[in-house]
Every structure is written in structure tokens, then in C-alpha cells.
């Protein structure tokens, strides 16, 4: 059980997050479970990550802060929808668990994983990164302030080195 997920959960509640949107990822497993177990959080499972960008813009229009949990491959699915948050200057906090980098065994993850910070920045998203488990909570805290208080699109990339590279099992 990863303690940084529990700390992130408390941090997000303290930041006033009311909506959590996600496409499942192993790195976010614990945080998703905590969110689903809290009846005061509105937690939405998506079919594709771009729905989450649109959902959080709607949430903001209605007065709710939210967070999008996704894997780096899902960042590619979000690209055009990020224009919505950018053009309306809607605070957007994305927590991205990385694939396709540190110790990746699946070559099909590498192209999108390597392109993830580039495409986010190309869309005007501020990219922060944590490559050590010790850095995750403070980086997300900084990101949430940038997102919610400075009204920016922020992605915190949680590196495969911090999570531990997925290993291939039969």
C-alpha cells in the first residue's frame, strides 16, 4: 500500500477538490479506491481521458474543483480538449502516472510516454515532475496551488522511477 497515495488524497481534500475523474491506472489504484470510498466526492470513471478535461471544465463552471487521474498514454487523448480549458482559462489539475520511460518493458508505451511533457507544454500546460516517491506530495501540492489559485492548467508527472517500473508477468 503506497503511503503517497494516502497523502495525496488528504492533500486533494484540503485543496477543496470535490470531483475526481479517472481512467484506471495501476499507479493511481490506491487513490482511486480512496476517492470511490468517499461519498462526499463525486468520482467519475471515464471511457477516455479527454472526457475528464471536459468534465472538469463543467465542474468548474458549476463551482466544483476537480482533479483528473490518468496515465501518460491518456495525455495523447486529451490534446484537443485541452484547448477548452486553455481558452476559457479554467484551472485544471492532472496527475499523470508515467509509462514508457524508466525501465519500461513494453515498447508500445514508449512513444507516447516520451512525448508526454512535450505535447502538454505545446498545449500550454505547466508540467511539474516527481521522480522520487518523496517528492510526489510536495510537487502535487505546488501544482494544486498553481492550478487552483493561479488559474492554470497543470500536469504533475509522477515518474516511473518513483512508482516502480511495471514488470512483465505471465
Amino acid at each position, binding site marked *: 500500500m503506497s503511503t503517497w497515495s494516502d497523502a495525496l488524497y488528504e492533500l486533494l481534500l484540503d485543496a477543496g477538490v470535490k470531483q475526481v475523474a479517472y481512467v484506471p491506472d495501476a499507479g493511481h489504484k490506491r487513490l482511486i479506491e480512496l476517492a470511490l470510498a468517499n461519498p462526499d466526492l463525486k468520482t*467519475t470513471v471515464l471511457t477516455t481521458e479527454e472526457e475528464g478535461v*471536459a468534465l472538469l*471544465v463543467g465542474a468548474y463552471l*458549476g463551482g466544483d474543483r476537480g482533479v483528473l487521474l490518468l496515465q501518460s498514454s491518456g495525455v495523447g487523448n486529451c490534446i484537443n480538449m485541452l484547448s477548452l480549458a486553455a481558452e*476559457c482559462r479554467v484551472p485544471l489539475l492532472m496527475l499523470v502516472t508515467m509509462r514508457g520511460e524508466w525501465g519500461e518493458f513494453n515498447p508500445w508505451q514508449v512513444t507516447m510516454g516520451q512525448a508526454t511533457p512535450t505535447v502538454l507544454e505545446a498545449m500550454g500546460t505547466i508540467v511539474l515532475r516527481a521522480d522520487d516517491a518523496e517528492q510526489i506530495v510536495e510537487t502535487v501540492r505546488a501544482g494544486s496551488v498553481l492550478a487552483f489559485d493561479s488559474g492554470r492548467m497543470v500536469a504533475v508527472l509522477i515518474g516511473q522511477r518513483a512508482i516502480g517500473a511495471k514488470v512483465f508477468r505471465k
Partner: protein
Amino acid sequence: MSALERRAATARLLKDRGDALVVTGLGSTTYDAFAAGDSPLTFYLWGAMGGAATVGLGLALAQPKRRVVVITGDGEMLMGLGSLATVGVQRPANLAIVVIDNGLYAETGMQRTHTASGVDLAGVARACGFAHAETVRTQGELDRLARAAYEAPGPFFASIKVAPDPTSIELAPRDGPTLRNRFRAAVLGSDAAR
């Protein structure tokens, strides 16, 4: 049977909207809603194709005591077809999605959409677990829809089959921060600045 005309159908749908929150999909449905009368409680999308239904979902979850009505086109809805499944899982009682279905991509030169070849959006919504899903073809059905879209328990879905005739472009406001701020001020009052 003479098909419904899109601009008149949208005006009928919005006539008795009261304090409902309205999100419109890019292109013709944004123009139709603006032509029916501007309101700070209407959030016009000018892009984000495929996102109208989930903008509506996030809004409906944030404002559970308000009715939220998404009005969008068939092409826009088709690009976000998975969002009907997402809405079907969340089951917001206060959300209605109404598709103005001309079977065409009007913005790009009137190319046929999947609905013109028989894809049944109301059938998809039904299969996704919507509380109500129907296809509207007549004025009488439209008149009933113009009440039910605001009153029937959601998630509620209707596809209004409209004539393919082109309509004028009515330029709704399109500055994002302006739309955002006026909408939030109208919904949240003094909390909008927080």
C-alpha cells in the same frame, strides 16, 4: 411528413427553460441557441468537439439542484459517443442531453454523419442506461419534449430529427473568459470570484 426546422425546434426547446443551465455544442447548435435569445446561463462551446455531454455532466454533478440541458449536434455527439456511457454510469437525475440531428456536418460542407446511415443515438443512450431516450420527429413530440427535458428524471436523452436545410450563422459570444465569468457569476453569485 414535413421535417422539423432546427432553429425553430431549438427556440421551442428553450422557450420555457426557466433557470436551467444550458451547454451548447460547437457550430450550428451554438448558433441556434444564441438565435433563440442570449443568456448568461448558456455556455456556448466553440470547439472541444465531443465534449459537450461531459461538460454538462461535470456541471450537473456540481449543481445537483439545477437542471442542466446540453444541446448539441449529431456530429458532435458521435465524436463523444463514449460520454453517453460515462453519463449512464453516473446517472445524474438533473441532466438532459438533446441532439439536433440533421444527419450532416453542416460546418464543414454538409457531409453525411453516421446518423444519416442509420446509427441510432437514442438507441445508444438507452443501451447506456439513460432513464429516458427518444427520437423526436413531430411538432407534437417536440412540444412534449420542451417540458420533459426540464422535468423528467434524468439522465434524459432526446434526438430531434431536423431538416437538412442550412441556416444562417448567428455569432454568439466566443471569448472564453467572458463566457466563463458571466456563467459562473449567474450560477454562483459572489462565490464566483473565489
